[in-house]
């Protein structure tokens, strides 16, 4: 169905009893042109772009649980395109531009809110690094503003500006950045893809690949039977190594746990998204009033979807150092998600060495903001067998070639990215 102010009014007048499910919960057919493994934001976006942009509608999205039950439902909902390295800068801006028209394209309210993303700096060296990144963004047509302390004092008077150890000197602001409603992004893509004929198949866990004599992938084995496919794309960040292992591949990826937190609801305080530059703490405020915040990954391999106390303590200390008054706010909820930590902190969107299998992986803890861009370039790769120009550097073999895209220059130590 098409959503509009009139459909809302009609539903309201009939007591909201006539809403239809927003997507079809399909049963698997014998064969599809393209199968996407993973019914998160990236998988569903890929399916929608395949159907809407590339004319491939015989598509299935296989999800082992319910759609959006993985990292799409476990993130802090931030969208931004403030990256400094070739490869990342253009790709994340492509994604940002898709966020800006997503709701109209999908006919779904994803609550995209461009309330600004502000990275604070606390030293001269950090200011210089941020100025450089801001200039890189502006050269590439992306908005960025370097703010000094006076501007921040007006905007965020409650920050701990004169902290002896972490004085807030200023910040790099991307006003077009902000937040989006993570579940609605999943539901929106599912809604729009389903309308175009994409089968969304839940509770369908992939347990292996079927391959022909040449080793080419011809389909998948699942908990709901064998399904044939012309091509198979995997978008299962968190479990990429496990799925790739079924095809005999080892990936340059470790799975790590990242925690996020929500406080009890308070009155409007934080206008946008804010990051502490002297530790690792970032925060925004949800429309319900809760402070949504997080920090570092826990730092050890994990598939457990829950973390431990040292990082929780570290994140809260970061918050206290920056905004001392939140010390009296109580923590409401805390959760963990499993991150595909790649060896350079950047994603992999490429054909795999196995014919017929395509990889979309390695999103580290930055996958949410990439959702529309990732879907678009992965659909491009699946449809045309060549990388989109904005994803041309996200190759699987870049580690072998020494062509890493390492924003922080940390090297092959995933728990530092």
């Amino acid at each position, binding site marked *: 169905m098409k959503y509009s102010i009139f459909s809302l009014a009609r539903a309201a007048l009939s007591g909201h009893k006539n809403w239809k499910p927003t997507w079809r919960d399909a049963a698997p057919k014998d064969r599809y042109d393209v199968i996407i493994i993973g019914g998160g934001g990236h998988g569903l976006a890929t399916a929608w772009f395949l159907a809407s942009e590339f004319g491939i509608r015989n598509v299935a999205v296989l999800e082992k649980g319910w759609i959006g039950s993985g990292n799409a439902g476990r993130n802090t909902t931030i969208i931004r395109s403030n990256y400094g390295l070739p490869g990342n800068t253009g790709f994340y801006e492509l994604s940002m531009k898709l966020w800006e028209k997503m709701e109209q394209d999908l006919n779904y309210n994803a609550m995209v809110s461009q309330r600004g993303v502000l990275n604070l700096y606390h030293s001269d060296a950090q200011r210089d690094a941020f100025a450089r990144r801001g200039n890189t963004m502006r050269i590439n047509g992306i908005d960025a503003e370097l703010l000094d302390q006076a501007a921040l004092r007006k905007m965020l008077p409650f920050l701990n500006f004169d902290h002896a150890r972490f004085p807030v000197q200023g910040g790099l602001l991307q006003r077009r950045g902000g937040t989006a409603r993570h579940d609605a992004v999943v539901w929106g893509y599912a809604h729009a893809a389903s309308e175009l004929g994409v089968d969304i198949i839940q509770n369908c866990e992939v347990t292996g690949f079927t391959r022909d004599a040449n080793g080419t992938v011809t389909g998948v084995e699942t908990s709901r039977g064998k399904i044939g496919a012309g091509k198979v794309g995997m978008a299962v960040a968190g479990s990429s190594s496990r799925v790739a292992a079924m095809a005999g591949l080892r990936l340059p990826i470790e799975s790590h746990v990242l925690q996020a937190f929500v406080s009890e609801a308070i009155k409007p305080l934080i206008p946008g998204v804010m990051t502490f530059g002297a530790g690792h703490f970032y925060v925004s405020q949800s429309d319900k009033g809760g402070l949504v915040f997080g920090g570092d990954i826990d*730092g050890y391999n994990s598939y457990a979807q829950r973390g431990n106390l040292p990082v929780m303590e570290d994140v809260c200390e970061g918050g206290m150092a920056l905004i001392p008054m939140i010390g009296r706010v109580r923590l409401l909820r805390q959760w963990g998600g499993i991150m595909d930590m790649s060896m350079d902190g950047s994603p992999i969107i490429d054909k795999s060495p196995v014919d017929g299998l395509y990889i979309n992986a390695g999103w580290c803890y930055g996958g949410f903001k990439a959702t529309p861009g990732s879907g678009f370039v992965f659909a491009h790769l699946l449809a045309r067998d060549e990388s989109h120009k904005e994803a041309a550097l996200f190759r699987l073999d870049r580690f*072998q070639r020494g062509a890493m895209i390492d924003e922080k220059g940390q090297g092959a130590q995933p728990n530092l990215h």
Partner: protein
Amino acid sequence: MRIVCPFCGERELGEFTYLGDAKPQRPAADAGEEAVYDYVYLRDNIAGVMNEHWYHGAGCRAWLKVTRNTLTHEISAVEPAAGAGAAKVGA
């Protein structure tokens, strides 16, 4: 998660630093690019029981070999890694 250090006893996680899978061995100097690529970049990324190197930085400063389940965080064994710098040369 707490780790029972064989030297210090049961200590909280914050005292330890993680290195990673204890299985990869640094290849010989003449092993070639493929072996180095494999060692530096590729991971088994085990979902289940894994041997790992941890460093007890806020305690005895010894390298430890910890057997831990990555699906549950359950630790089944902790032993000293073989000598200082063991993580680099293989325990």
